[in-house]
């Protein structure tokens, strides 16, 4: 099944490792804000959200870009699961 939160997390981590990170060995926290962890800057967050939209065919409304909904990779993955359920 290709729709679990863990699989989405794996896809997002893979994207960060192959396209964004200076050091591919860098530890990526799953439950912490990537901005606060110093992994991404604001551009990096926009880039990651753009990847999600392009990869999953989702339009993410502005009001959903909050720390509560998108404040970590796990939250982003859960958001993908929920949005796809709503749209299916």
């Amino acid at each position, binding site marked *: 099944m290709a729709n679990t939160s863990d699989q989405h997390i794996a896809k997002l981590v893979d994207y960060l490792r*192959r396209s964004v990170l200076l050091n*591919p060995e860098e530890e990526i926290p799953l439950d912490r804000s990537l901005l606060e962890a110093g992994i*991404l800057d604001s551009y990096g967050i926009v880039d990651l959200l753009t990847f999600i939209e392009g990869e999953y065919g989702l339009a993410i409304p*502005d009001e959903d870009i909050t720390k509560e909904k998108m404040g970590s990779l796990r939250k982003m993955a859960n958001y993908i699961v929920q949005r796809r359920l709503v749209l299916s």
Partner: protein
Amino acid sequence: MTQVCTRCVLPASFPNISFDAEGVCSFCAQPETKHQDEFDARQRREFESIVQTSKGRFPYDALCCYSGGKDSTYMLKMMVRDLGLNVLAFTLDNGFITEQSKQNIVKVVEMLAVDHLFFKPARAFMTRMYKEAVFGDLNKARGNYVTRISDICLSCISVVNTCAARLALSYRIPMIFAGFTPGQIPRAVIKNNHRFYRQTFQQHKEHWNARLGAHAEQYLDLPDDSFEIYQMSPYLVFEKSEAFILDQIKELGWVHPEQLDGCTSNCALNVVGNMCHEKKYGFHPYALELSKLIRKGLLSRDEAMQKLAQQVEERAVEQTLIQLGVSRADIQALGKGGTGPCAVSSAA
């Protein structure tokens, strides 16, 4: 000699890169996202809709971040003549804009009959910021930015963005246009989230103030204001080749400045930013952007290689280094990343 991708310009020294048997890099080999066409179409609709709904609501429809380079020159022409916007053009003079570029700016805003403002931040602040960015740890908490931009450009563009947002807030201008290329920014429309910006600034405030002094707030923080502003990057929806842009801006009297590296058409500091980046990280800061333009068909590999290889006369580089207060020995001594405050002499 360092291996370079046979399709784009990414070198083997670029982070996380690998090559297949034909010498094609992993960035060229990986497909775009699954729903890229759908995303691109949605992005274009959103861009056009915001332009239409923003027109005529306030005295100015849009603020144009006008550097005087070729991309922002054509963008300004497009905003006025194609999109029919009432524009306020804004130039942040970082102290390194060439004389020819300043002449271009004056000529073009006259030709297009738009209002224009120059803003020149204090030289002492800007040179300190550039040196802290290159030789210190100013940008260290900002993630993995160095794969796509030099330390100097990142700090400069932060000041440009903040000053543009401050202007847009004070004049109530609903859109800010910037000439970012498809390789420089991920999406064409970004709604400015002031709360988010302020949170980011607050998060780094102590560090930035320690490195740059209390003036940092003046250049890098925004007032608490909920006025809605959209950041618009038209080159992501109206993709144009460099040859097309150069041809289109001829009629405005725009002249290509001399003594610049191949990746800028207005800023004499860019070459120093590139030198420092290559020394510090081992690859050219424009390599990723140019590789994306090649994959999009907007630039040939040969053109990109020429841009990366274009040399600037020693005398011109020397002049920029003196103005910045940095020596070649300082650059030679650059190691990986800064670990504290800048140790390079602040005499400029």
